[in-house]
């Protein structure tokens, strides 16, 4: 110890010297790991109350969601198979690629329940990979936003430039494959106007698609993809394009087509005149027309409600099970007799 070489000095002087140069660690709550702490313990009471609480919250939410979903009236009509002339069912691709054939098709749907306006009109595609890496990257946001940047077509391959080398606006595969089936609705003799404004997100219209950017060289190539655009309308007004270019996450998706702002009554027959232009036959995708109302929770989907009810119910069950176990076979809190060294007495 340091005393042994400190040489002769009085004990008190020695002690004060060590005090002055003490190596004693400085005190702080952090270094001493003495920060005030709470230590939650999974006691049976605690566990039971947690499960009960979850159950109490989840079951009402589940009921409410299910109720909301049930209030939504939804009409789904698959038309890709029905709208093919009987003689061409074996050769759908030839049918859809043949420009000469008139693609008009008439569908009649019955309203199963009263539908309050607004009634949202969707098209639903299936097996269409808008999330494919090549597809999702094939666009140029700068070009869409700013007319001066029309030449920025990087990433748009192979729909980059027209044959003469001037840039395509909007370039890229997404815009090129724009969905182009159209629907018109009549109820009896009354035609139902489809309102196609405000079907896209406002931020897209205002900030991502320029109001002074107009289509150029669009769908002028040898291979025409999807729909064409109105050359006299700026991109920010072409809401179908904006909706289409907000890519979907999964291969089955719906996109908003428009809104019918008239109430529909139960058993009304709606006649839909549609143009079956869009080729989903190549990749065996279904096409569906959807008319739907919404609730506070959006469209019709029972999953969330059922999920909430299931988890809530499960939690109630677990709470009950724990309670039973707790009463049938109570175990003292911190019962040290369960510790192995108390059980065997040897310290293992």
């Amino acid at each position, binding site marked *: 110890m340091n005393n042994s070489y400190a040489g002769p000095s009085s004990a008190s002087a020695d002690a004060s010297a060590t005090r002055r140069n003490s190596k004693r660690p400085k005190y702080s709550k952090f270094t001493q790991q003495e920060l005030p702490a709470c230590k939650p313990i999974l006691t049976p009471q605690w566990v039971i109350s947690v499960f009960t609480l979850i159950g109490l919250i989840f079951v009402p939410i589940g009921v409410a969601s299910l109720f909301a979903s049930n209030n939504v009236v939804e009409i789904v009509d698959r038309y890709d198979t029905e709208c093919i002339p009987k003689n061409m069912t074996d050769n759908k691709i030839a049918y859809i690629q043949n420009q000469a054939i008139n693609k008009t098709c008439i569908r009649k749907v019955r309203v199963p329940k009263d539908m309050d306006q607004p009634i949202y009109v969707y098209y639903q595609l299936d097996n269409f990979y808008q999330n494919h890496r090549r597809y999702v990257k094939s666009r140029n946001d700068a070009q869409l936003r700013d007319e001066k940047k029309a030449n920025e077509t990087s990433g748009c391959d192979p729909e980059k430039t027209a044959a003469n080398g001037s840039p395509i606006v909007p370039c890229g595969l997404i815009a090129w494959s724009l969905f182009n089936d159209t629907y018109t609705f009549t109820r009896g003799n009354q035609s139902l106007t489809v309102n196609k404004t405000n079907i896209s997100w406002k931020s897209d219209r205002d900030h991502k698609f320029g109001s002074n950017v107009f289509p150029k060289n669009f769908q002028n190539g040898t291979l025409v993809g999807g729909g064409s655009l109105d050359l006299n309308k700026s991109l920010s007004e072409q809401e179908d394009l904006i909706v289409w270019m907000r890519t979907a996450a999964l291969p089955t998706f719906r996109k908003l087509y428009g809104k019918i702002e008239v109430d529909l009554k139960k058993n009304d027959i709606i006649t839909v005149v549609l143009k079956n232009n869009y080729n989903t036959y190549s990749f065996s995708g279904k096409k569906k027309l959807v008319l739907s109302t919404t609730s506070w929770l959006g469209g*019709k989907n029972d999953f969330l409600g059922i999920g909430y009810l299931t988890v809530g119910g499960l939690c109630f069950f677990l709470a009950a099970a724990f309670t039973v176990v707790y009463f049938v076979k109570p175990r003292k809190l911190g019962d040290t007799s369960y510790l192995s060294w108390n059980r065997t007495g040897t310290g293992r």
Partner: protein
Amino acid sequence: MFGCLRRRWSRRRSGSLDRQKASGAGYSRVVHCNDPEIQEDDRPLYPLNAVSTTKYTIANFLPKSLFEQFRRVANLFFLVVACVSFSPLAPYRAVSILLPLVVVVGATMAKEAVEDWRRKKQDIEVNNRKVMVYDGSHAFYQTEWKRLRVGDIVKVEKDQFFPADLVLLSSSHDDGICYVETMNLDGETNLKTKQCLQVTTMLCSDHSFQKFKALIKCEDPNENLYSFVGTMYHEGTQYPLSPQQILLRDSKLRNTQHIYGLVIFTGHDTKVMQNAMDPPSKRSKIEKRMDKIIYILFTSLVLLSSTGSIFFGIQTKQDISDGKFKRWYLRPDKSSVLFDPKGASLAAFCHFLTGLMLFGCFIPISLYISIEIVKVLQSTFINNDQEMYCEESDKPAQARTSNLNEELGQVNTILSDKTGTLTCNLMQFVKCSIAGVAFGSGLTAVEPGLGGLKQYCTFEIEDLPHSPAVSRKTVKGFEIEDPSHSPAVSRKTVKGFNLRDDRLMDGHWVNEPNSDFIQKFFRTLAICHTVVPVIGNKSSEIYYEAESPDEAAFVVAARELGFEFYERTQTSISLHEFDPKIGRDVDRSYTLLNMLHFSSARKRMSVIVRDEEEQLLLFCKGADSAIFENLADDGRLFELETKRHIDEYSEAGLRTLAVAYRKLSEEEYKTWHAEFLMASNAVTADRDEMLDAAAEKIEKDFILLGATAVEDKLQKGVPECINKLAQAGIKIWVLTGDKLETAVKIGFACDLLRKGMRQIVVTLDTPDMNALEKQGRREAFEKASYESIARQLNEAHSQVTVSKEISIPFALIIDGKSLGFALSRNLENLFLDLAIRCASVICCRTSPKQKAMVTRLVKCGTRKTTLAIGDGANDVGMLQEADIGVGISGVEGMQAVMSSDFAIAQFRFLERLLLVHGHWCYRRIAAMFPLLHQDGVQNVFFSWTRIIRWMLNGICSSIIIYFLSTSSILIQAFRHDGKPAGLAELGVTMYTCVICTVNLQMALYLSYFTWIQHLFIWGSILFWFIFLVIYGFFPPAISTTAYLVFIETCFQNPFYWLTALFTVISALLPYFVYSTLQANIFPKYHDIVKRMPSTSSP
């Protein structure tokens, strides 16, 4: 097993285990001193004295440190990924992978560079120190250390460091003695005496070297600090050189004006530099396992990516069939390589690379650096723990390496030294037996029969009035005298001395019947030692610099009884002695002829002196066995009584030594001396053995004088600490050099042995064996011993296995001799198996080598983490052998600390170090994967099942998150205004779920919340939302798909919140249910303890 072997070879410091290695080295070094006939060219080429301890040079820093960095698997992987990420393959921008890599690698490299720069600066400073060198003709001139060469003569002044390893030629003291402080070498602060050869003592001035010419042949450079073999050829005569003449670089000249020395080893050849290799890097088990985990993750990454790319390839291939496009919207006819249906296999391969990058976050790049940071923090916590700070010695705990922090939490077996570790190593001379009469009546701390027995040294000085009740004096350090007390009072407070017997005190011993024996007894104590007296500068008091506290206690005891040792020269020892005939103190000087130093083989030391009556005397003190074996027939007068007393003393937990002497005849001495000289002149590796053999020839026919008993008190808190460690399921083995009885008593005193434990004693100390040994037939004895040990071990083993059901704890006690047989190849496993089944194991009479061997046996045999704790040089082997070495920075110098991984001031801090810090460190490191102490011992937190369980939990949670959120959001309108969710909305929802789940999962796992945990858990979740909002406000050119996504689409949307709530709770539920089930129905130890109402903070 391989690790064990490698460790054995990587041991670097001295220790008896290294003997063999030293003998492997040659003895080829030739040093010419002052020999003008030898031309410069003929001199053997030895390196200059400049040293470099740096790891890198400026030229090789970049490549070498980069190489070091990318030897880590994870770093290499990320480097490759970063390179690939510049290609169009990358699913994200290159910077997002490159930046973390550069930060991680750069930070580590910067740390290396700074450390190396510090070393460099230190090297420059050292190399440019000045020293006086003889110029070969007449004078000394000053030069830098780095210019020194082998064969130079240097002059070193007081308080200077020696620039190289020197042979001491002469010193300013007439007798050629000098004092050396070796703090930098072994941390020991006591002064050591060095002594030059008689022939060179006259070289005491600068001019005397003109005619001096010498040649030295000696061993090659090695790292053994305490051995040296060499011969000096001077004027046709050979002179043996021993460590006594060697001054080592980095030690300091003290109490001596100057010395002259001859340089024999320079630069990296010096012993200190040979020692200065990197300590054997002990890698923690977690770190090793971490590498394996990385491999597993990498495998799953490859699997995942390849599965994905196979499907991708198939899909891509089908995009064009018979000239028809399938997914026409991808324009498969004009595709790039990455998606080309015509080259689908190449595209699939590229996709595989992309997948590797995309899922690269599987392998946490920051893992190593996070672990590093955590470890540094943990070391800081250990170093700064006030509860491990020792007030008395002003020493905080010290984590000398941060590698093994979490290993502390997994210790399975502790191998502990006794003296200085369990006890204070502050010796008090309490009893003695002289000529068959026992003196001294003081109670001792470890008196048998008392249940409590727990009396510790407290270190404070008690200034209580002298009374029998307080006769147990407390001690402090080794200053012998406390000047604050007047001489009259001082006797009561003399440290190291607590013999209370009026028959001896104040000169009363003269009246005792065997007073001549008493006189010889204390004379032996005053003469037979290696203590150096130092006259204090303030008073005339004498302080003793002793190598061991026992010796100091003996010298002090002798002084207290009137035999005051006051001067030592190379040739004499002087005492103030009370002469009963004259009735007053006289100064008496004894001519010192030979000193037979203590060796662990002989277990005794002797001194041969010629007294003033020209009588040749040999004084000897040593282990009782070593003395009793060699008694003369007429010296056995008190053998029985002394033996009985020794047994009593050791039963009382005292350390005993026997004291004996013999008279020598001149002829006998002469013949023996010639033999002894020859042995000490030998320049071979087995010189020590030869010296021992020579010593044994004269250490015989002793006349027994008596025995001493020295008390070594238990350290504060030892029994409690041992008890708690035992509760934590840690086994404690005590390896001690003490006698069996002493060890057993200490075992009881410190709670290692308890009532109700069945003791198994394995010993060779039986009458049959002793008889056999006396017959002297070595082979027969060894064979019988082996058989006896084998039989005893087998019996014990069956006894333990049979009574396992009734769960009686067993204690195994084995002595050193038996241990020697038990550690032999054939019995090793039986012994280990037996020992493992016993709750406590005590090995007594063990040598340092046996300590290391036992440690290795436990480590390799059980494959569990072992911790060795000790304080002395004899524990070094054990400390380095164990997975973790803990040094006690106590009284016996710093050697143990220097070779340890952790240093603490007292044994009781071990409890906190292991059970608190070790456990926390372990849990914290183990919890670093996204994926109570007994748990630590069983390696629960980091076991493979646990890792797999966490991985499964992770997979389960991610499956739940994915399917629940996609099924909820699906295709329908996502909001009241009819808009369905796109890629961005689903992404935000899902990622919200992930962030919340991960953080809440952590909150569920944590058992302990301070503001730090609260801040980071809730802060992380909050930060995600803040980030979403702020990033969303960035112009769309920067934020792209995230533009306003939260504010516009999610924030006021009940569906978003309900989906998130539902998904997060569902993802957490499996873990929550599992842990509640496990905690309440199948509890783990830490769960129970956590619930114990009285538990204060762990």
